[in-house]
């Protein structure tokens, strides 16, 4: 399953970091963060619970870039 989220992030480097961090979360198969369109696309693994995974994703993103916002 794929889903796109609106995000708010200030720099391209931070977006790249968020992407790295998101990819490492369990239940995420792949993720891309686009600084230009301010969007995050997450591919969930089979059977992963979206809301639980996204909670972890947001946590991880906040950790690498304290200023970022992910709109669930």
């Amino acid at each position, binding site marked *: 399953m794929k889903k796109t989220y609106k995000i708010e992030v200030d*720099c391209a*480097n931070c977006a*790249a*970091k968020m992407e790295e961090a998101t990819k490492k979360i369990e239940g995420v198969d792949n993720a*891309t963060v686009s600084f*230009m369109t301010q969007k995050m696309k997450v591919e969930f693994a089979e059977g992963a619970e979206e809301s639980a995974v996204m909670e972890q994703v947001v946590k991880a993103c906040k950790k*690498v870039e*304290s*200023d970022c916002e992910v709109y669930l």
Partner: protein
Amino acid sequence: MTKKQRKVLIRIIISAILLIIVKLLPVKGPVEIVLYMIPYLVIGYDILKKAALGIIHGQVFDECFLMAVATVGAMALGEYVEAAAVMLFYQMGELFQSYAVGKSRKNITALMDIRPDYANLEVDGKVETVDPDDVEVGSIILVQPGEKVPLDGVVREGNASLDTGALTGESVPREVKEGDEVISGCVNLNGVLRIETTKEFEESTVSKILDMVENSSMKKARMENFITRFAKYYTPAVCFGALAIAFLPPLVNILMGNDPLWSQWIIRALTTLVISCPCALVISIPLSFFGGIGGASANGILVKGSNYLEMLSKTKYLVCDKTGTLTKGVFEVTEICPSQGGSKDELLKVAAYAESYSNHPISKSLKNAYAKDIVAEEVKDVEEISGRGVKANVFGKQVAVGNSKLMEELSLVPAVPQKVGTEIHVACDGVYQGYILISDVIKSTAKTAVTRLKNRGVKRVIMLTGDSKKVADAVAKELGINDVRSELLPGDKVEEVERILAAKGKGEYVAFVGDGINDAPVLSRVDLGIAMGAMGSDAAIEAADIVLMDDDPGKIALAMEISKKTLAIVHQNIVFSLFIKFGCLALGAIGYVNMWWAIFADVGVMVLAVLNATRALVYKRG
């Protein structure tokens, strides 16, 4: 300007004024430090906070960290003005960058401003304004002059001119009337249209295009990935380099028994940190690609990812389909040649009648050329002979219409035409009557497109076609294409492409351009699939990497020019930024660059790189 940006701007102004005031005040000693702390903290508190949070979270090496260390270090060494100024300029650079990026983003979205906000749905004779998402297939919607067509559908009532510019870059409006298909995203210029929808909003052309453009920056170019990887190693490397500059020379000095010169080397190390910020690259390269994709979409060229834009500039082999790509795919009667004694009109009439039951493009062209109504009762006993033609009873005569093989089977000797085209021979009651020549028409922009592509570095333009050798060679000659493979079956096309793929050099790409019909196997096999004339053809939009909304071959050349320009900007930025940075780093390490130069090397380079990147967006329509 967003709220966040305005806040930063106010902080910049306040801090700059404070800094000047403090500089003018005749104070010295501890009071001076405290006074300088005010502008410094006003402008830099968030950077310091982010740097601290970064360290806590184990994300040490980022721009904030570089800035924090450099300015705190400068403060500690008594360089108060420099410390505050570095922070000030850094924030100005960041503000400018976020403003420029926001602006480009808006420009691009404005170019793609095709999303309809509402639909006028007809319910029980009354018109309601609803969200396009809520309109079901088969509903009737009204589109008034000046409104966008919200969903794909078929016109049930009314005539209008539609502006397709936002979708195709084409400035000439398209006329539609009852029974015509319309696609969403066009703007109705004059009449009122009643449209029966054929697709849901999500499946409509406009949604698909928007989705594609928005997702295009997700497919990153090799160059972008390179920069991200580069930044990951570069920043830590620079930090350790700075550490080495700060400690090694003084230690060596101590060992040699000289003055260690601690403060001098530490300042040089701090300067190094300021110079080395990787933002110029990290921001300007995705921005260039984004701009290039935006500029292309304004011209009706949809690129599905930065990587494809990058590949297009390195395309050395362009394989083209003939019919529908280089030629219009619409057959026209070019010559009517009755054998001695016959009349042209009579020959055409008999052929058109005999072929009247068929929907083949050739039959259509005959009917179009005849241009009069066909009395269906006059045609009886129609027998289609596959690969040969048609036999029928027309006006009580036994008529055979078809190629020379059909004539030979009837033991007749067909004439041999001088001109090139598809030959349609006609026989009546066993007597040869003459032939009609039908040709596909070459698109007016095809020739210049081929020349332009060759000028843009395409080594070979190869034309593949299922058409006869004679016709294919004639078209190729007129267009200036030297490589032609004719009389190919669909499977042969894939084989030809495989052969070209096997023969290409390293770092060279093979692109295929087709009209999207029957091309899917080839489109997916080549490095870069380009589909043209995609208005309304979902299959093409799905299969291709680059989609040309209209069927103008000139757009292939234009796409290539945009891609070359974008890549040129990317290269300029990489070379320029790295050159200035490494230059300043080298000079900084030996003490020729002070903090002020370092600020330029960081912020100045970034501003220039971003400005250069915004050029990618500007591409004249045409």
